[in-house]
């Protein structure tokens, strides 16, 4: 009885006490922490031993048919290259349209690969344990994916392991969108492990097999990641006005071995993406345009230097403001395309010897020409002063 009382009190204490996780700021109950810390090392050890044996077998012993497979893959690669060309065209067009509409998207910029080392052991709680934790940059609510589709999100993190809640768990949810009909909704897991899209009106036309992707509305899963396909639609058994839309997950959630944790997602506008190709196009155009015959050197020496050259003598603070445009203006004047990516205005001083300033302007791309101030202004530059801080910023625009 004494043992029972003591143990009960220890359990109650351990359940109440929460152990703060320093890296993430989240806390975990002491009981959970103890159990996870006790089980994870063993699971990791067995998992790495298993992968070692598997790698030995697959990489060194079981290599039959690799040559034939290699040939098949080569043929497949050739075919995919051809497809890539047409897809690149489509992607470019989509980017241009997005730029026109001013869209902003979320892009995955960093992921961490992790190996699944265990589960909860029951289908009442569909969670996985992975071998990466806060020391590897993992934190709560990060999306976990495989190349086939979304797996789930991080729910608990310790230093060397993390818990992933699968999207088909009854307590999980995700913002989704049907790819063809563009219908948005919320997908919830279920006890049976088959996710369902909630609150879809019965008059919506949804075909089985329609791909389901993440909508990005939940702020966890980036937009456009594959989730699965519609497996069936049926009327609400309770007679409600909604459809029961069941989804078959793309990723094989029952046999996940390796996953990617999205550790960094960036907001990126299409204008930023377009900036680099536009510069390259301008450079190419500048090279192809006919050049004007260089003027005699003595005449060039008499001419005032271009405005960019004058601003380069200003303090660094002012120079940084016009860094982008100064680079654009100077690029066509550089002798080789490879040395044109000079964006530091402190380097954009006087034009190279023997190259007049007028040539710089004429050989530039149309965009660069628009940003160039009129020649009269260039000939009468005012010296920089503290009272006129905005003048250099206005010129490029």
């Amino acid at each position, binding site marked *: 009885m004494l043992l029972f009382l003591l143990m009960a009190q220890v359990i109650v204490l351990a359940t109440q006490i929460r152990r703060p996780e320093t890296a993430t700021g989240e806390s975990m109950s002491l009981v*959970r922490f103890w*159990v996870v810390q006790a*089980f994870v090392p063993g699971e990791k050890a067995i998992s790495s031993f298993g992968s070692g044996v598997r790698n030995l077998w697959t990489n060194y012993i079981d290599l039959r048919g690799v040559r034939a497979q290699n040939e098949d893959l080569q043929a497949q690669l050739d075919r995919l290259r051809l497809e890539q060309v047409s897809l690149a065209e489509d992607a470019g067009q989509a980017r241009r349209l997005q730029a026109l509409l001013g869209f902003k998207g979320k892009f995955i910029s960093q992921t961490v690969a992790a190996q699944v080392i265990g589960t909860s052991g*029951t289908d009442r709680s569909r969670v996985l*344990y992975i071998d990466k934790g806060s020391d590897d940059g993992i934190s709560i609510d990060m999306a976990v994916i495989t190349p086939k589709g979304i797996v789930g999100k991080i729910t608990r993190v310790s230093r060397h392991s993390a818990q992933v809640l699968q999207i088909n768990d*009854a307590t999980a949810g995700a913002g989704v969108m049907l790819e063809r009909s563009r219908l948005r909704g919320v997908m919830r897991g279920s006890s*049976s492990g088959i996710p369902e899209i909630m609150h879809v009106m019965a008059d919506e036309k949804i075909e089985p097999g329609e791909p389901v992707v993440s909508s990005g509305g939940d702020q966890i899963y980036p937009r456009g990641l594959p989730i699965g396909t519609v497996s069936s639609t049926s009327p609400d058994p309770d007679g409600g006005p909604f459809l029961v839309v069941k989804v078959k997950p793309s990723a094989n959630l029952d046999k996940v071995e390796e996953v990617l944790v999205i550790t960094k997602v960036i907001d990126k506008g299409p204008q930023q993406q377009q900036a680099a190709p536009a510069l390259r196009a301008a450079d190419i155009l500048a090279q192809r345009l006919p050049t004007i015959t260089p003027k005699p050197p003595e005449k060039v020496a008499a001419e005032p230097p271009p405005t960019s050259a004058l601003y380069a003598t200003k303090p660094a603070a002012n120079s940084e403001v016009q860094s982008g445009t100064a680079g654009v203006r100077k690029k066509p004047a550089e002798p080789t395309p490879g040395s044109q990516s000079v964006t530091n205005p402190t380097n954009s001083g006087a034009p190279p010897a023997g190259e007049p300033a007028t040539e710089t302007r004429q050989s530039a791309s149309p965009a660069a020409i628009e940003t160039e101030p009129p020649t009269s202004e260039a000939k009468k530059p005012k010296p920089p002063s503290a009272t006129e801080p905005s003048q250099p910023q206005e010129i490029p625009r």
Partner: protein
Amino acid sequence: MATITYTSREEIEVHRFSALATIGIPLLAIFFQAYVSSRLTFLKLFDLPLIVTVFFAVSRRNQLAGMLTGCSIGLIQDALTHLPIGIYGISKTIAGYAASSIGLKVDVDNPGSRFLMMFFFTFLHDGVYFIVSRHLLGIPADWRTLHELSSALANAIVAVPLFALMDRAKQR
């Protein structure tokens, strides 16, 4: 020499377990369930920790020991899930108590009775789990009769050889 941790009721049969078996077998069952079921998904149908709970409970024939065993195993299982700690704890405490109570009256060494017992206790355990999670905590959960029946059947089938295997850990 192994340390003796518990004794059963002397009037019927005295079953003792070493400290290694008392701690090691439940931990091994939980570890096996958590690790191997990530590779072999069908293992999630079984509940090895429940089988171990029932085995220790009926072997010791002590209700307090049965409760404590069930409580400890259940709490460890809870800690591996993402749900509140205590759902498995309560379910397995009740299962442990019931199993040890039955162990006082029924011949628990017979394979047939072990099969039926395990079938019944799995159903009881799952029922308590459902009630606690759904009605006490409001966690979304459905009672899937067919699934629970298959789970109970699977546990009952596996329990017979596993009980025989664990019988070797008994000390008289």
